[in-house]
């Protein structure tokens, strides 16, 4: 079953995402900031990374850049969690190498359908 890395400094969001995905049968690992996520990614190769943008220590954009330098993550789908007004974040994310984004606020069904889309 596919493994997903969920990154968000907000515990409630992170847990909601993890729970939703686990219910659907995915394996999920959580990380609360970019650095922890990067470490996790180096230890295990995930099929998908979902990350918030605004985080302490290492933000989402930086995380994407770092991930893309890893040999195992050149083609891995990486989705950003952005807000509708964060157009500049989408651009920055894309430049960093993000695959796409999920707009907050989203409900679990939207999350799942996007994830299924990307992992099919």
């Amino acid at each position, binding site marked *: 079953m*596919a*493994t997903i890395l969920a990154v968000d*400094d*907000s*515990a*409630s*969001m992170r*847990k*909601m995402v993890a*729970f*939703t995905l686990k*219910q*659907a049968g995915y*394996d999920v*690992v*959580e*990380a*609360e900031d970019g650095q*922890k996520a990067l470490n*996790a990614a180096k*230890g*295990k*190769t995930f*099929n998908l990374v979902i990350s*918030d943008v*605004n*985080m*302490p220590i290492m933000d989402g954009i930086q995380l994407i850049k770092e991930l*893309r330098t890893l040999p*195992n993550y*050149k*083609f*891995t*789908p*990486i989705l950003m*969690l952005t*807000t*509708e*007004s964060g*157009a500049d974040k989408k651009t920055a994310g*894309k430049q960093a*190498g*993000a*695959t*796409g*984004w999920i707009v*907050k*606020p*989203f*409900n*679990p*069904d939207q999350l*799942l359908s996007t994830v299924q*889309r*990307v992992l*099919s």
Partner: protein
Amino acid sequence: MSIDMSQFHQVFFEESFEGLDSMETGLLELGQGGEDPDLINSIFRAAHSIKGGSGTFGFTAVANFTHVMETLLDEMRDGKREVTTDGVNLLLASVDVVRDMLTAVRDGSSLDEERVGSTQAGLEAMLDSTEEATGTEEGQAKIAPAAGWQIVFKPLPHLMQTGNDPARMFRELAQLGDLETEVDLTELPPLEDLTPEECYLSWKLSLHGEATREQVEEIFEWVDGDCELNINPLQPGSAKNEDTPEIQDEVPEKTKNTQAVSDPAASKNSTTTQKSPARAKSGGDSGSIRVGIEKVDALINMVGELVITQSMLSQIGEDVEEFDQASFERLRDGLQDLERNTRELQESVMRIRMLPISFSFNRFPRLVHDLSSKLGKKVELKLSGEGTELDKTVLEKIGDPLVHLVRNSMDHGIETPDQRVAKGKSETGILHLNAYHQGGNIVIEIEDDGAGFNREKITAKARERGVIGENETLSDEEIDQLIFEPGFSTADEISDMSGRGVGMDVVRRNIIDLGGTVEVTSRPGEGTTFTIRLPLTLAILDGQLVRVGNETYVVPLVSIVESLQIRDEQINTVSGRAQVYKLRDDYIPIINMHDAFSIQERHGEYADGLLVVVEGNGQKAGFVVDDLLGQQQVVIKSLETNYKRVKGVSGATILGDGTVALIVDVAGLIRLSRKKSNSTLRSVA
């Protein structure tokens, strides 16, 4: 599938309140002149998180409100907007509003909608009106052509390195209708020049069906900028061209990663975190507690010891055939160990419920800041002993009294800068909150270097109110204590925070209800100090056991002033029934415990008995008892939940021998007896 999101709500509320606290601290710092970009960024992030979370969990009003805050903060952190005092104050007010909004959502309490609206309007007004409405591009007419779409899709070479996969996109398109694909291989280099990670192919796609342009565009949404994309309506009538080879699965080579089967990364967060500050203050008790892991570990150790002792003791019981001296000694040693283990376990468990008083002290920087500006005074707040721990319930209940005392100090104690300078003091007054452990109590001091009490004014007011007699003279300490009388206030006008005259007596009542005491000492011209003493826990009481007839009662040690042998000549009878005892210069009412609790009337003179002098609610009285038994800690059990509320009794406990002893409510009993003797007086008169 539907997932019940409410299971995440509590975490969301906890972290949002924490976030609001950190925003407030940050904003206060910002207000002091720190234009640190990291600081602004962290304030922004907190607002952003709350906005995101509240949107996700459906708290739309909160999301909308925090969105405006976030926008303002965004401009500040980008340097587009200067950080001004007005801005900071408005944001501080907004933090309060969000707190109220979240509390209303969580507890179902009422919300001042008007305040929300006006604060939000204030934020919006402050924001530049040139803020562009960032929205999705509208205006694409939803034309659903009968035939479909012709799509020319030319990825840029790096497209796959964004994790996007043309095959996936085509599969999605195929779900919208009948899809034909035609691949263009012209850009494909010879094998030796081919870089596997790059995309050299492009496609012409025909999607037949009723899909809308939006639906098609949505599929390519993520790769906008990584490709050339042309979407044109298919001419109605163009049928599927069967000659075009359908090459749907031919995709350029890419290095796809096989799923590595490795050990699951153990990066799960544990729910008990090391000394992390939990949410606090707001009266809403969410019924959960965060405990430092070392406390839990200590607890586990204690229980371990207990188990060992218990098995040792049962061993003694089993081994022995005959109970001789040696086994008796072992038994006694074992029992001592047991006592020690139990006591340590008890302390350890109680410590779990203890939190540092900083959770209460935290609200004061903001309060002092706001009050200072409101009152036009300069006040510096000093906090010490914030790490002193006390029981969670006591902590929650001591908050309001502390606030009242601080407000009182700021309102009546500390003078305006002009007044202070005129007196030769520094412009800025000092308000010092201090906490420390003493004996089995926590002591909290609130000290100001303000004006101190105007004793003449207080005495005059007390005479006016009839609290003291016209000719009564009181010592300085007694005058100071007068401020705790109900309805007492010397404020000339009722300022909206204190001075309503409902304050101090309620404060004292609240503290007494917690099993504590409050005292005040004042130095006119120099300042005032309030000293609060609270027990470290509500569940346990230091008690003096007394015998009344065949019954044992417990009198709280904290209320006992002294105990003495009764001397008949000191007893005076007033109006035939009520009796008083002359204790040095005082006459204190005698309460005969036998009478009070309807225990068989003692025979004989008082000389056989003892007088326990107690104090409750500032009044002294003497309890007549037969004997003083030991002093011990008793566990308070509620009478109310097990039976019903009884006047004069504050609870019950189970003694070592298994019998029940009632715990005397000192203040209540004094009140009761007074009523009784008043009514007897009336009937006599």
